[in-house]
């Protein structure tokens, strides 16, 4: 198994339902012991933990926002292959796929390119005179340069190298022509008119129409839908006029598909709500179903002998996979897709699905927190409030030998990690950390944060820094090298990470050491020795300024063990997925003094008492995060 590189995930406040009602966390978030310790393995945590890069920040609410809670708005639609923007008005008429010549291979989803059949490499091209324009006369094909599939395999070629989408719409596999959407619409109109004429004297019977040859060609989806729609609309109108007064059977009739009520409800769902007639609540009676293709009747073709014959000749190699079938575009011009595309010969090139550029709003105050430029080709953002420029980043490295990551963590063997906090804001910040002394879950690992409280200097401008060093840009690096040497010497000479002391400090960063004793993953040990430690370690070790806390801590722990030991039911089921990953929940509180810009704090309950312009405003932010260290070796 590949070694797991250490990671930090941060919890968005939206995962706590209590947080969504008020814009900020409670004004005193410093006491994680009040709440239950955050369990990174809880199913709920799946949806609330994000790497820092994925988080945005609302400047008005002073709070973290994640992809799950922001409200997205589409700024632009574009094709990911030709990168042309598609106006949203086109979307309604043409659908959500590119209508130029951008297609994906139906076999391997690689991009298809248009090439001329004439200019295949076999023809003697190398001897051609230098600048002779090769005649591109077609026919043209779509071909995949990844798997070598080409549209000739489904018998389709094109006359022109451009506007493939329209040309493809006119062809069935095998090359037979097919009506375009517009032609089908026209034909539908004709059918509707002729249908009305034939309808009015006597209801058409299936026997009658099957003879006329209209059922020879199966209805395409659009036509069938329109026919059914007009048929049901007529039925509804009739039932309104004739059964308006009879109320006796309404309660029974409402339940079936044939009831006017359920029908009008279903139609309102599928036709956009325009048909739902609220006044006619109490319509009764049973309506008949469609009986002819004019009314939208489509007999299922249950004869599978052609499919079986095809299977006989082509074998399983000729069939398609579920993924290939799912990737197929809805093909409105063809009979219903159900079961239709089971063979490679029925595959169609896949027009690229459009992609979007989206802006994001804060779910609480509705301010925009991210907004890309609308132009497809530009990567600039008008607004981009990312959490990384507000809250410190946390990087994790093993203290000894930071270059090489250990494959796995050795159980019951203490290891030390260096956590580096980097302050992105232009004010110094005070950081307070709290973590449970034992990680939650069945296999609790011991955690000791050696320096849970420290200050980080402001993120000064790089230029300020350069000036401070007398314009010598390498000054910082020299300092660093010295530090490194010191550190190296420290490693050799036994410089220990001391409790209460930070490990290393730089311009806008501070490193501290965390000691971890990974738990043993042995289930038998779980049953005997860790009974007391419980499955649900809820107690959080709170860290305060004073250092003489430890004894108290231990007492607490013992007490707790006693308490839990009595009712311990040991879960000795086998190791669950990722249960061997050592994750430390950590509560981070950041306090700083920002220039009060007199900004209006939206959403009451904000933690800003001072509003004077020249007074520094006290700010704080607190959140849970998870430090993932690696997998514990199974002993």
């Amino acid at each position, binding site marked *: 198994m590949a070694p797991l590189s250490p990671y930090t995930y941060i919890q968005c406040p939206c995962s706590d339902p209590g947080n969504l009602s008020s814009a900020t966390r409670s004004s005193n978030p410093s006491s994680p012991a009040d709440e239950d310790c955050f369990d990174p393995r809880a199913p709920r945590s799946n949806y609330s933990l994000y790497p820092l890069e994925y988080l945005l920040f609302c400047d008005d609410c002073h709070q973290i926002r994640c992809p799950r809670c922001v409200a997205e708005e589409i700024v632009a639609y574009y094709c*990911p292959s030709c990168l042309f923007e598609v106006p949203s008005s086109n979307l309604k008429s043409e659908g959500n796929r590119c209508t130029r010549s951008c297609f994906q291979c139906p076999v391997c989803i690689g991009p298809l390119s248009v090439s001329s059949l004439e*200019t295949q490499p076999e023809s003697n*091209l190398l001897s051609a005179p230098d600048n002779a324009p090769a005649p591109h006369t077609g026919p043209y094909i779509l071909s*995949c*340069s990844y798997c070598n599939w080409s549209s000739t395999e489904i018998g389709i070629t094109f006359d022109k190298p451009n506007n493939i989408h329209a040309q493809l719409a006119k062809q069935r596999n095998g090359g037979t022509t097919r009506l375009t959407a517009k032609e089908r619409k026209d034909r539908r109109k004709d059918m509707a008119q002729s249908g009305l004429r034939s309808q009015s004297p006597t209801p058409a019977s299936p026997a009658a129409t099957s003879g006329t040859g209209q059922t020879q060609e199966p209805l395409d989806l659009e036509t069938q839908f329109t026919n059914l729609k007009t048929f049901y609309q007529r039925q509804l109108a009739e039932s309104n006029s004739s059964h308006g007064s009879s109320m006796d059977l309404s309660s029974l009739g409402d339940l079936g598909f044939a009831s006017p009520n359920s029908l009008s409800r279903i139609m309102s769902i599928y036709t956009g709500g325009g048909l739902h007639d609220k006044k006619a609540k109490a319509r009764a009676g049973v309506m008949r179903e469609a009986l002819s293709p004019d009314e939208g009747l489509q007999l299922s073709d249950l004869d599978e002998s052609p499919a079986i014959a095809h299977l006989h000749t082509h074998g399983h190699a000729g069939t398609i996979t579920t993924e290939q079938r799912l990737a197929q575009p809805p093909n409105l011009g063809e009979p219903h897709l159900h079961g239709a595309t089971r063979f490679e010969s029925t595959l169609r090139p896949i027009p690229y699905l459009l992609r979007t550029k989206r802006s994001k709003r804060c779910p609480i105050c509705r301010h925009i927190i991210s907004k890309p430029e609308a132009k497809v080709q530009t990567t600039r953002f008008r607004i981009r409030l990312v959490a990384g420029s507000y809250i410190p980043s946390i990087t994790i490295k093993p203290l000894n030998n930071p270059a090489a990551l250990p494959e796995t963590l050795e159980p019951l063997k203490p290891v030390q990690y260096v956590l580096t906090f980097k302050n992105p804001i232009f004010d110094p910040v005070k950081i307070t950390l709290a973590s449970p002394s034992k990680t939650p879950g069945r296999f609790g690992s011991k955690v000791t944060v050696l320096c849970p409280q420290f200050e980080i200097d402001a993120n000064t401008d790089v230029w300020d820094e350069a000036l401070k060093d007398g314009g010598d840009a390498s000054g910082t*690096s020299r300092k660093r090298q010295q530090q490194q040497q010191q550190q190296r010497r420290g490693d050799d000479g036994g410089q220990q990470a001391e409790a209460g002391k930070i490990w290393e400090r*730089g311009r806008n960063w501070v490193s501290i050491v965390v000691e971890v004793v990974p738990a043993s993953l042995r289930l038998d040990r779980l049953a005997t020795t860790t009974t007391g430690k419980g499955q649900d370690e809820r107690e959080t070790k709170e860290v305060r300024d004073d250092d003489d806390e430890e004894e108290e801590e231990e007492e607490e722990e013992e007490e707790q063990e006693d308490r839990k030991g009595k009712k311990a039911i040991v879960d000795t089921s086998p190791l669950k997925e990722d249960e061997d990953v050592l994750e430390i929940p950590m509560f981070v509180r950041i306090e700083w003094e920002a220039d009060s810009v007199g900004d209006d704090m939206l959403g009451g309950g904000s933690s800003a008492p001072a509003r004077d312009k020249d007074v520094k405003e006290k700010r704080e932010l607190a959140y849970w995060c998870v430090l993932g260290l690696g997998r514990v070796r199974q002993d």
Partner: protein
Amino acid sequence: MSRRPPRGEYIETDTGNKVARKATLVGTQNIILGGKTVIQPEVMIRGDLIRSVQAQSSSGGAPASNTAVAIGRYCFLSRGCCLRPPGRLYKGAFTYMPLRIGDHVFVGPGSVVQAAFIGNHVHIGSKVAVGESAIIKDYVRILDGSVVPPNMVIPSFSVVAGQPARVIGEVPEGGHEAFELRDLYKTVGNNPQPAPS
């Protein structure tokens, strides 16, 4: 780090390029480096594969150059990767087309790149194959082991993986800075500096 070759492992140019002595650059006169680009040992750049058919772009006024590979600033070509101009049929005859690479482009170890164009801020993982004439726009991350099919266009802010490669995700708003390669540039060369924490 203590045992360095006496002459220094890298040749450092005036514009700050760091080219490993053990890199193979064929047809150097057709390779343009924008500056501050790192080329690690065992990298191969095929500058010899130049256009054999000249585009008659007299109207454009662009100098008819023989550039085969053009690389921008702060690019990082990891050990054992290969840059190769794409070949294709142009007006019926086979020719190579130039491979153009923007700034802050990372190419992972063992990857083979035959793209036509790579934008700025692109991360190509290790053991990736980028097929001929692919176009990779800005802020794209291609995960390890991907095979980007020939002619594929990858739009900005895509995370790409698989064989054949497909877009599997989006680069988040907070992930733009991670593409910066200025710090990485400082960590290699004859005077490597430690990475800032």
